[in-house]
């Protein structure tokens, strides 16, 4: 079998997810041995439109982005959204809750007309997406697992249970017990509850599980002293594009 041809692209993002690919360190050398990387602007010169798998990081924020993404979709057999900006809209959607003309004026003043922007959105709002790897940033081991599954012709599995499950397995004290609030009960696992383990709380960066019990989560947050506005703020941090946060 020929090695699959792989390309990386990015839109509005911090490029931290592609950095996690580089951060595979020695394992990256194995990955690039098993596939043929034909485009990875952050790390290599040269480019080809002939690829099988496209990993795309970042949110779509301009009409010109849509054309570029549609071009990538036409070339790729498999299109993978890499990270929360691409998969969910992510943190970029925070600007969607302000008037877009106000947003532009705030940053670019009287030159605002020169700069194109519209409410940020995930890739799937523009083109069909075959697979999503959530996370801000992605978990690099999960990325390696996805690549491995593709190479074996299997469908990769991303957990569909909440962070709380992994948090219990990590033997963490519940964040609510420590007097803080947490998005763990409704957030998709796969991170190993890394933020709680490091003494913080779950921010919700991997997005919501399928069919989250959002009402119950709102009640729990309210019981722990959060105002309606604060609760919305928690949901909007990463999942502002979803209906739940509106």
């Amino acid at each position: 079998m020929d090695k699959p041809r792989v390309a990386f692209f990015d839109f509005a993002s911090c490029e931290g997810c592609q950095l996690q690919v580089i951060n595979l360190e020695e394992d990256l050398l194995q990955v690039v041995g098993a596939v043929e990387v034909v485009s990875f602007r952050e790390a290599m010169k040269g480019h080809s439109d002939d690829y099988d798998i496209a990993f795309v990081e970042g949110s779509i924020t301009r009409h010109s982005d849509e054309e570029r993404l549609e071009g990538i979709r036409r070339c790729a057999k498999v299109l993978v959204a890499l990270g929360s900006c691409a998969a969910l809209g992510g943190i970029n959607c925070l600007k969607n809750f302000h008037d877009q003309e106000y947003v532009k004026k705030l940053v670019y003043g009287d030159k605002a007309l020169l700069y194109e922007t519209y409410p940020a959105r995930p890739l799937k709002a523009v083109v069909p997406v075959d697979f999503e790897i959530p996370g801000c940033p992605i978990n690099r081991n999960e990325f390696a697992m996805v690549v491995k599954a593709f190479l074996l012709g299997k469908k990769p599995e991303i957990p569909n249970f909440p962070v709380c499950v992994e948090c219990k397995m990590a033997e963490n004290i519940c964040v609510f017990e420590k007097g803080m609030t947490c998005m763990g009960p409704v957030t998709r696992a796969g991170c190993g509850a890394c933020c709680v383990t490091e003494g913080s709380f779950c921010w919700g960066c991997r997005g919501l599980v399928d069919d989250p019990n959002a009402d119950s989560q709102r009640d729990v947050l309210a019981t722990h002293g959060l105002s309606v506005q604060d609760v919305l703020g928690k949901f909007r941090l990463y999942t502002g594009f979803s209906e739940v946060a509106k």
Partner: protein
Amino acid sequence: MSTEKIIKVNHVTRVEGHGNIHIKIRDGMVEECQWQVVEAPRFFEAMLRGRKWYELAHITSRICGICSIGHTITSLKATEAAMGVALSEQTEKFRRLLIHAENLQSHILHLGYLVLPDLLRVPSIIPLASTHKDEVLLVVRLHRLANEMSDLVGGRTTHPQRPVVGGFTKWPTTEELETLRQRLADSVPDVEAVASLIKSLAGELPQFIRETEYIGLTSADEYALYDGDIASTDGGTWPVDNYKEITNEYLVPHSTAKFTRHKRDSYMVGALARLNLNYDQLTPKAKQVAETFGLRPINCNPFMNNIAQLVEVAHSIEDSIRLIDDLLKNGIKDEKPSVSIRAGRGSAAVEVPRGILFHEYEYNKDGECVWANCVIPTNQNHANIQKDLEALVPEIKDRPQEEIELTAEMLVRAYDPCISCSTHCIFL
């Protein structure tokens, strides 16, 4: 017969973010020469409005994946300045350690993965994995060490979790610090090997000089990274609160990032600026590396920014060992951050890998952000990249087109631009 060389590099590779180089030379005359920033703007200042004091570092960390630690720490310092939060000596030492970790990670990534392929005339590090396997493994080993140091101190390689307003949520253990100290000490031969590899290829770095103003932090106590006053090689120091007198941002039509100027048309920030300002405070090993390359202040060759980064790699390793010894001597205390929320305005600056970074916030009495401004290092360098290109291209205009293109790309890459950072912020 007229001759024409048209160079259009759209989306320069092996840099962070999207920038274009357009050059047109007709009959030996440079007709066009432009550095364009075409990154999608993200409007972080707007994103921060209304968010809580403890969320700002988390959000601004997402300005940039490569310098997420720098953004986090600058953001925390700005919030602490606004609310008058006092910090323990232990917190400040661990923050300095974390900044060294990021400097190491970012500089090694840049030198090893992004610049080395130019010096060896290959498109990326991938072919080097078979032709220069030992050298690649050396770079990867140092990169891994820097990332694991970030994990240990910050709780994650990218977008750190442990640093919070007022301190840290969790501290490394004595044992973990002892292991890290040993690994840093053991890495010195690796750094020497990278230095001699780059030394053997340094002839590939163009000899190009343009007198430039360099700006960065300076401090009487140390080679300033975590704290200090703003200084210029043209003379003068300023408190960080007065940063707008230095940055003077303005818009240009071909760029989504703002440009800056101070005393001249442009200025440069980053490793070379720091070295030019604070050379005497480098550690002995770092000075040795600088001397090997004949790098002395004030050096006005932007391509030497690569070498200044290498010097800082040696500095960060040696200074981290000193910091760890200090921390171990005093013993690690399980301190908890303490913050009283209040209204206020505060600004902060940190030297991040690509240069001086400013954050400034205003909070209301509930600790909600009502105004924010971030000035990014690469923003401050865009105008200088343009001015360098304008001076460089006429010097090399008679060379073959491919060579002009590569040299122009190498110039942009020498700045290690973080373009996605640079279009996110800035307030008018």
